């Protein structure tokens, strides 16, 4: 961990482990026994609704919060009691975390100044990092003279200045507007892969998590629901919570029979664990649902909304259940509100969950 070498690549990437982390704030349980391992060099997104404990977990790794029980390990070494400034973790905050009295260059050089690196050396290194985030010409600007996206880039450069073993991103894009968010998202991912630095990324935006991360850990009420690569998380959600939090999911009532499930007049095999039956809900993604105009159909189109390449059609079944389906725009032409239709599912195994009232 030298700060003097001129190159920008990190030394060997670190492994981060959370073991049985538990934390209560008065009556609320922020973390309820979190176990999670971040592999070396990967970008892991912590995803969940607000209050699920994802930020608390990140702040424990940074050293700003302390667990009631459990431990945090970096490369197998227990750092639970190590103070924040010796953790070797660079952090990017939600917003407005740059030091307002320093210009961009001095902001990036701040950590090096704390480590007593010589002035000329740290200025050179800071300039190099600013170039890395594409702000080589903005070194003399103060934070209030930079846009939100530029500020976050400077914050990213500052977090990388000390060559941390772990990079922590606490919803760094949530205060930015949509376009900047998209470009910065790609840039963070590119930098992270170039540097090969182990990164933990907290977000409540599932699209952000799915598009950037190597693996996504979905949290709910202080516990880990599932940790898997984005495609697996979307295609094979382990729990009903994950299924409904990640992407859109419709619940269609079905009945378990002979190891399969009867739904919409079809008999389909069950994927994953089977809940106690016989009455269950079948979970389906909108792109898997087929909708066909049928004068004799018992289902009715309730609403359609145009999404560009696809049209999302909301259909009410005979029993009152609403199902969402995404159809290619050219197929959805004749489907106005009130059209009688039939709804079908592809002949593939489906996820089922216990019936919710």
């Amino acid at each position: 961990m030298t700060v003097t070498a001129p190159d920008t690549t990190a030394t060997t990437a670190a492994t981060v482990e959370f073991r049985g982390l538990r934390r209560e704030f008065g009556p609320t349980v922020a973390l309820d026994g979190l176990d999670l391992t971040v592999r070396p060099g990967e970008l892991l997104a912590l995803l969940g609704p607000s209050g699920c404990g994802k930020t608390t977990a990140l702040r424990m790794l940074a050293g700003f919060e302390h667990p009631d029980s459990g431990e945090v390990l970096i490369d197998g070494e227990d750092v639970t009691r190590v103070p924040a400034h010796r953790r070797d973790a660079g952090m990017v905050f939600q917003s407005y975390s740059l030091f307002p009295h320093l210009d961009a260059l001095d902001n990036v050089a701040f950590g090096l100044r704390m480590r007593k690196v010589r002035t000329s050396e740290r200025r050179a290194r800071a300039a190099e990092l600013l170039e890395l985030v594409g702000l080589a010409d903005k070194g003399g600007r103060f934070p209030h003279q930079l846009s939100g996206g530029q500020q976050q880039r400077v914050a990213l450069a500052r977090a990388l200045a000390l060559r941390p073993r772990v990079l922590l991103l606490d919803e760094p894009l949530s205060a930015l507007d949509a376009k900047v968010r998209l470009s910065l998202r790609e840039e963070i991912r590119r930098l992270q892969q170039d540097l090969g630095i182990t990164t933990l990324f907290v977000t409540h935006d599932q699209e952000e998590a799915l598009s950037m991360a190597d693996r996504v850990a979905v949290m709910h009420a202080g516990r880990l629901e599932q940790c898997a690569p984005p495609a697996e998380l979307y295609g094979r959600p382990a729990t009903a919570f994950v299924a409904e939090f990640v992407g859109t999911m419709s619940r269609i009532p079905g009945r378990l029979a002979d190891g399969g499930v009867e739904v919409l007049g079809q008999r389909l095999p069950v994927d994953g664990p089977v809940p106690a039956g016989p009455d269950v809900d079948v979970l389906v993604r909108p792109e898997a649902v087929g909708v066909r105009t049928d004068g004799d159909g018992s289902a009715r189109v309730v609403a359609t909304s145009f999404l560009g390449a696809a049209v999302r059609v909301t259909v009410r079944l005979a029993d009152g259940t609403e199902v969402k389906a995404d159809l290619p725009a050219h197929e959805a032409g004749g489907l106005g509100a009130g059209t009688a239709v039939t709804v079908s599912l592809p002949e593939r195994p489906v996820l089922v969950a216990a019936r919710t009232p």
Partner: protein
Amino acid sequence: MARLTLWRWGVLGLAGLYFLVPLAASVVFTVDVPGQGVTFDAYTQIFSTDGFTSSLLLSLELAAATIAVVLLLMVPAMVALRLGAPRLRPVVEVVCSLPLVVPPIAFVAGIGTVLKWGPEHLSRTPLFQTFVAIQNPDFPFVLVLAYVVMALPFVYRALDAGLRAVDVRTLVEAARSCGAGWPQALVQAVLPNLRGALLNASFLTLALVLGEFTVAQLLGFQPFAVWIVNVSGSQAQLSVAVSVLSLLVTWVLLLALAGAGGRTRTASRG
């Protein structure tokens, strides 16, 4: 638009008259001696009058000490309050506002009573020497203690306004994640962004100490304000000249403070 501008100038003019007419009258009174024409004798006399330099210096020393003590006391306290115990803020606010409610005359009566304990109860203990030391007429530290208390409401408000404008918690955490320990985080990341607030607090404390009369007079010390009153009893023109001069001195000091802090204040704006 034109009418609005007219109004603004009108109000400014009236306010200016309100302040400047008495001031101008004072100046005229000191320089225009009947029968002698315009003369600056009153002002030259000031510098030769016994006690001018010593009392002014004493006041400045007291002001510097008070500013140092009150800031050392309040800045860490307010930052800790913000980071650690935000719920205690109303309590601290009320405590810091108390000196506004307690009249100085009652305050000094209390101090006088406590100071009497020295000879009455503590004469055989080492504390007695402490009591003597803080009442040293060359530098009465007891006045600094009193002024610190009296400055609390102003300093609290100035610092509170400054702390509201910055996100102390995030700044400290950002500094700590950059490898700064607690003291470094406070000094390098938080304090520079409170420059304006520190300056305001110093302003108010300086003005308070330079103009304070009651406590100093009743405890029997002679800083600048007390000296002015003592002089004015004997020579009318001299006393007014001293008042005008003290006004100018205060202004110059405030401008100097503003000049020292102004450059960086613009840099840290936003």
